[in-house]
């Protein structure tokens, strides 16, 4: 399909997404970015407060990094998600109550999704489809028995 590259992009993206905890990493990165946006204190003030003020920037930056790394290097997702959840919870103390709670929520959900993600799963089936398959299997058995 080289003649229609635009149509080719969406399935390719879907395929790329299928092999990494995409939404988990994205939510974690967004959470970190949101917290960074809410705090833009001038560098002079941060220097004055010292170590504590620095932590306020360090933790959301770590969240942002962990989120991006989860997407681009999914093999290490357990490590990134654990660091991500610790940083997310830490921002409650250091960064405006976790970016007024929104960033903390995004980060926590993203970390949990990354942690729970597993590669190479069966395609999802609805309950109705599953029942239909079971019925079909039953029919086959009946047909075989006599």
């Amino acid at each position: 399909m080289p003649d229609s590259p635009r149509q080719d992009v969406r399935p390719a993206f879907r395929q790329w997404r299928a092999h990494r905890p995409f939404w988990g990493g994205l939510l974690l990165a967004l959470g970190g970015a949101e917290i960074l946006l809410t705090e833009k204190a001038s560098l002079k003030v941060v220097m004055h407060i010292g170590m504590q003020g620095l932590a306020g920037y360090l933790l959301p930056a770590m969240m942002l990094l962990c989120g991006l790394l989860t997407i681009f290097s999914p093999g290490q997702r357990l490590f990134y998600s654990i660091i991500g959840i610790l940083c997310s919870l830490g921002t409650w103390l250091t960064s405006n109550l976790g970016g007024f709670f929104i960033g903390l929520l995004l980060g926590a959900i993203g970390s949990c999704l990354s942690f729970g993600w597993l590669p190479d799963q069966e395609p999802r089936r609805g309950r109705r489809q599953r029942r239909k398959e079971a019925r079909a299997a039953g029919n086959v058995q009946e047909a075989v028995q006599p």
Partner: protein
Amino acid sequence: MASSSDVNSSADHTPGIPESDSAPDPARRGRVRLRRAAVMAVPAVAVAAALAIMTAEGALGVQFSISGMPFTVTAKSLDGTGFEQFGDLDSMIPDSPNAGDTGGQVLIVTSAMKNATLDSLCQSVDLGGTNLLIKAGSGSSKVKASDLTTDSTELSGDASFNNIEIGNDASTLTKAGVKGKKGVFSQQADTVHIDNLRQTNYATTAGVFKLPGLKLSFSDSGC
């Protein structure tokens, strides 16, 4: 029904991911297993709840550094030690939605306090439509802040100062450890008491904020 897929999940625990091979079966893809996610979600929620409760009881201090958006702070009374005040110019980011007709720059009054105790603190941030309200310290225990620095455009209240020095150069201030630009008018005092405080702020930074009786809510009206 879940047994067959669970067997699969336990077999796939190895972190190696078939990233390089270009998907032998496109129907099989990575998926979030809810039970696995819950292993992390349950302790995380517990820790978050513990943090929120400890903050609401005033046992844990939190840090604040907000800027770039205007917000209002009110308090019934404020007691501070090590008080400084001087004028300054705050710049917003280019094309800030909050700029309005100000040209991206606001004339502000910077107030710095070494230690502050606030009674019935109420803080509201306008999020366009709704306001985020943060209330704390209305009970017997008060809000405590250290290294509090605020940039405000409006400041009103009934103030009384102790041992005040008016007319210092802003670069020579000593009481709270923050210094302004050279040649700017400033004042400093050992202690300050303000009743019915009302500030419109553009930036706040606090080293440690202790917020007993914290209430976080959304509301139509601000403070």
